[in-house]
């Protein structure tokens, strides 16, 4: 009745165009790299200072000097390049990355994104998320449509501290795909078995036709 994590990642992977440079956030976005269609060559950026991020290493081949932005051990590829953090974010801020696929806590109908802080509860920090949403050409959010209590995470207005204002282009949830358009969100696709009514009732944000 709805997409699972891998299906959401596969939907997100269809966004990628041949030759693009893409930054993937932690969580479901990381899975996207497993679903890039054949014939589409995508170079993954890791904002801690690498282009051409490869898969996890084989056991015993981990390198403490080679990690991704999630601090996980990774590998390099033939086209990889390393650089420092100032250069990495110059690239991000300067619009050189074609797309970022990120997780979220909340998205608003105006494309506001909240994914870094729950006041009084979690104090982790925004990491590179604010830079990514401000700088990257296309921002795609992948998240569950509702929270554990069944409340919509696709809102009229975000309740949590923002990561960025009017920065999201597309939202992919377990229930479907939404584009941020003038006046609200537009349904692009519904998950198999999800009706428009179900989708609307799970969505607080304004949906425009």
């Amino acid at each position, binding site marked *: 009745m709805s997409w699972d994590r891998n299906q959401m990642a596969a939907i997100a992977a269809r966004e990628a165009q041949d030759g693009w440079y893409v930054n993937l956030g932690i969580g479901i976005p990381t899975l996207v790299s497993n679903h890039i269609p054949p014939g589409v060559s995508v170079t993954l950026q890791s904002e801690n200072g690498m282009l051409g991020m490869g898969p996890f290493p084989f056991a015993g081949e981990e390198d403490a*000097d080679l*990690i991704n932005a999630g601090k996980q051990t*990774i590998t390099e590829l033939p086209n990889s390049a390393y650089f420092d953090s*100032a*250069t*990495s974010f110059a690239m991000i801020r300067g619009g050189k990355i074609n797309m970022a696929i990120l997780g979220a806590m909340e998205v608003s109908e105006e494309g506001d994104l909240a994914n870094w802080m729950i006041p009084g509860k979690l104090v982790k920090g925004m*990491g590179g998320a604010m830079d990514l949403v401000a700088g990257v050409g296309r921002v795609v959010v992948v998240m569950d449509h509702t929270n554990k209590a069944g409340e919509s995470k696709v809102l009229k207005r975000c309740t949590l501290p923002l990561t960025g204002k009017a920065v999201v282009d597309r939202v992919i949830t377990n229930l479907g795909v939404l584009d941020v358009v003038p006046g609200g969100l537009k349904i692009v696709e519904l998950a198999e078995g999800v009706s428009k009514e179900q989708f609307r009732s799970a969505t607080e944000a304004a949906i425009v036709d």
Partner: protein
Amino acid sequence: MSKVYSDATAALDGLLFDGMMIAAGGFGLCGIPELLIDALRESGVKNLRVASNNAGVDDFGLGLLLQSRQIKKMSSSYVGENAEFMRQYLSGELELEFNPQGTLAERMRAGGAGIPAFFTATGVGTVVAEGKEHQDFDGRTYILERAINADLSIVKAWKADESGNLIFRKTARNFNVPAATCGKVCVVEVEEIVPVGAIPADGIHLPGIYVHRLITGTHQKRIEQRTVRAKETA
């Protein structure tokens, strides 16, 4: 005039004072100046203000200086790995200035580049923008961010030649380059010191002009999250 010192304590001699500002390289536990952090702990220097992307973990990296309550204020982008950090922050013992990661890196780079302030769109419309000067350029709104200038930079590189020319290894380069540039004095620890001329002039990641003191020593280089894939059998 040699830049090479016998160890981290010797290399920090005469540079430390309570309340000083330190810029530290590293991302997570990758490429952190672990020997210099240990020496800072032993020195007992207090009320440090530290600009570093992360705060280490409880028992390694800058976490050690949190444990010993030597840090008064952190400027970071992400501190999620450090429980002691959270405890001190939530109890009000520790000041925290959250910076978007790229803004933090650029603030350090600006400090090293003689740029006192720059405009960025990062953080506009968020808490990060509160109290900051806003200005529009070509129809988009930006905020003014100030440079970070530190009393001391602590940096980890892979190799140095004796004149201080540095090379880093893989993603351990990270904040070490911008951090190195923004300090009045920059002390660097490396895994190996090689003779002048051993690093090709076109292969140097950070020229020796940025490096004032240099040490070598054994590094733990801890891995924070060991992720692996299964070896496919043929």
